[in-house]
């Protein structure tokens, strides 16, 4: 019988052997995967089967995301938009996670998850409009590119400060819990973002509140130029789950089937057991951090090439889908050329679309526009009318 002591927090056994828990385990937490690198299901894998219809849709969206990233990135390089951020290498994380959720699940993204929005129905035109900040942008030109959001699709507008979405997700989860909804909050964070104080606050709180939240950490190895070896000294992020009393799992983020199964299961646990769950998805950030970054300055070009070519999640899933007879070379070229054409058209249209009128400068600061802003708006309108030469041609009042 192990002797026990009573302390606040419950009974704990004691030992007279002074033993420190080592800083790391002899074996790293293994990574869950279903598909091997050649796109074949590993024998005896646990996974949730995916129908042909779902698999084809997932693949199409992963490929579309690739095309979208490529074309918007080029548009920025051409000076047509001011900024862009790609998800290259993380297409499986984006699409397979989204496919595993219900549309009522509320998503609080970091910023490298446009695929979730794409899956839910945001059109290429809507993405283009936000990047150009034109009159059709739902964000009314208020935010820089890639800061998309959609109330209708339950995807919160992207916010730049890192990790603020984590305690907010706990709050959303708490709200869903109080309303007894069959839904959970799902929030994304990168490896770097887990260093923020909000990571601690968000996870700790969600556990204490027993809130239905799925925390997904995209461990892609790099936080701009900071490699994970300089970000933390733990075995990644999955080991932190238990520190908060949160069930956790590590998964191969480049394996679409594994990601799908994991997120489906985590979501069920979160909703039926009313608890948070942590998923660490291992992957690699193939692209630069953003268009403001040139990652060849801090990492080897052949490292990037290796991941891009040999560990590509889109190619891997494609092999599986093709092996099942659900996809062909012809389907591939048709999809890619259609996506490309649609994107180029969307960009051309978005670029030509007029920008927001001046009144949008003053709206939405508050629910109801206050008097001082009404006065300022009138003053500005009069000024533009009086001095049109000081304002760009076609400037809309």
């Amino acid at each position: 019988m192990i002797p026990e002591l009573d302390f606040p927090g419950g009974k704990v056994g004691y030992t007279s052997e002074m033993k420190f828990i080592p800083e790391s385990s002899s074996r790293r937490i293994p990574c869950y995967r279903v598909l091997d690198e050649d796109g074949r299901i590993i024998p005896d894998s646990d996974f949730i089967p995916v129908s042909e219809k779902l698999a084809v849709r997932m693949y199409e969206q992963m490929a579309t995301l690739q095309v979208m990233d490529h074309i918007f990135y080029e548009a920025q390089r051409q000076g047509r938009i001011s900024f862009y951020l790609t998800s290259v290498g993380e297409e499986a994380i984006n699409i397979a996670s989204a496919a595993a959720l219900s549309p009522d699940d509320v998503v609080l993204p970091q910023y490298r998850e446009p695929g979730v929005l794409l899956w839910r129905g945001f059109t290429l035109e809507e993405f283009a409009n936000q990047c150009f900040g034109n009159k059709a942008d739902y964000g009314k030109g208020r935010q820089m590119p890639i800061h998309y959001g959609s109330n209708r699709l339950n995807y919160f507008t992207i916010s730049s400060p890192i990790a603020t979405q984590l305690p907010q997700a706990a709050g959303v989860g708490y709200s869903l819990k109080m309303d007894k909804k069959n839904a959970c909050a799902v929030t994304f964070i990168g490896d770097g973002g887990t260093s923020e104080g909000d990571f601690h606050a968000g996870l700790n709180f969600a556990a204490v509140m027993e809130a239905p939240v799925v925390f997904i950490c995209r461990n892609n190895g790099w936080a701009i130029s900071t490699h994970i070896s300089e970000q933390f000294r733990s075995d990644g992020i999955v080991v932190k789950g238990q520190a908060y009393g949160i069930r956790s799992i590590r998964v191969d983020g480049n394996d679409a089937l594994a990601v799908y199964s994991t997120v489906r299961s985590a979501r069920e646990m979160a909703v039926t057991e009313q608890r948070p769950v942590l998923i660490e998805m291992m992957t690699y950030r193939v692209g630069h951090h953003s268009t403001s970054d040139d990652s060849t300055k801090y990492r080897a070009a052949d490292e990037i090439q290796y991941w891009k070519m040999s560990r590509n999640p889109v190619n891997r899933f494609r092999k599986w889908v093709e092996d099942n007879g659900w996809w062909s070379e012809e389907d591939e070229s048709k999809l890619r050329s259609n996506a490309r054409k649609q994107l180029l058209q969307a960009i051309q249209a978005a670029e030509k679309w007029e920008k927001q009128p001046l009144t949008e400068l003053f709206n939405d600061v508050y629910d109801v526009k206050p008097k001082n802003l009404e006065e300022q708006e009138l003053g500005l309108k009069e000024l533009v009318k009086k001095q049109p030469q000081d304002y760009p041609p076609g400037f809309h009042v």
Partner: protein
Amino acid sequence: MLGILRQRAIDGGLAASTLRRTRFALVSARSYAAGAKEMTVRDALNSAIDEEMSADPKVFVMGEEVGQYQGAYKITKGLLEKYGPERVYDTPITEAGFTGIGVGAAYAGLKPVVEFMTFNFSMQAIDHIINSAAKSNYMSAGQINVPIVFRGPNGAAAGVGAQHSQCYAAWYASVPGLKVLAPYSAEDARGLLKAAIRDPDPVVFLENELLYGESFPISEEALDSSFCLPIGKAKIEREGKDVTIVTFSKMVGFALKAAEKLAEEGISAEVINLRSIRPLDRATINASVRKTSRLVTVEEGFPQHGVCAEICASVVEESFSYLDAPVERIAGADVPMPYAANLERLALPQIEDIVRASKRACYRSK
């Protein structure tokens, strides 16, 4: 002069009979009924939260010690028993955490009332208040609104030192997207807090620890559960014609006492209680200065970039030709708050400072 009053039952079922001292009622505010009803600011805040929680199931309270402990300053007393732990939530010690959670809950449609034990601690959460709460409605083009109230004691208390005494009115009031309120009396506390909780925008509600225990006369109208004060409207606490004294929170009491002293010397001071720092009621302030031609502004906070600086700028811009004297600004000393009682007194505006400044404005002294 000091009587003992029996506390009345307040709409909403707060029942605790307590002894009260009458406040020597110099405040002859016009809205007060002739009745002898009085209420402390603490009870005013408590009843306001209670009534709003009763009326709207989406309203909930969150903060350190708000539940079982009945509130660090007892503002949330009795609420846990009445509404249960889901709606009166004791948080772990993480301002960043519970502020973020409150914002997230507000995004999802709840109406959190988040308590900071003091606004000094809100700095650990200020990113959520500014970058998430204040700016979300604008950045999301109206898709994400944040009906949240951040409340707690602000500014100097008594002998609590530098990290517990700063006034954050100027910091928060400089941010578009936030509304910032500062009650003085019990009526202010009730009416403004109810308005804040009902408001769809994020509101920073700056209370004062030393005012919690102070009793004020309160009208029947203010005791009604539907009572609400408009946000953005200042109150003329005392009418006058020689000099306008503008201030908020505890300094309103000091300004009124100063006005009494000035009256003895033949100077009729008009005292304006801002009630709302953002939006600032520039119209009322300027109308008053155009009447009196003289301005004295008072705040406990640091002088540089303070609330008084904004008021002076507004008056100089809009009513320059009406001024008969330079604008006077009284603020706390430009030092972190010292602890020793004598030093603390020197670091904060006193009634004599207000009297002197008013007399200067009236050319009655140097």
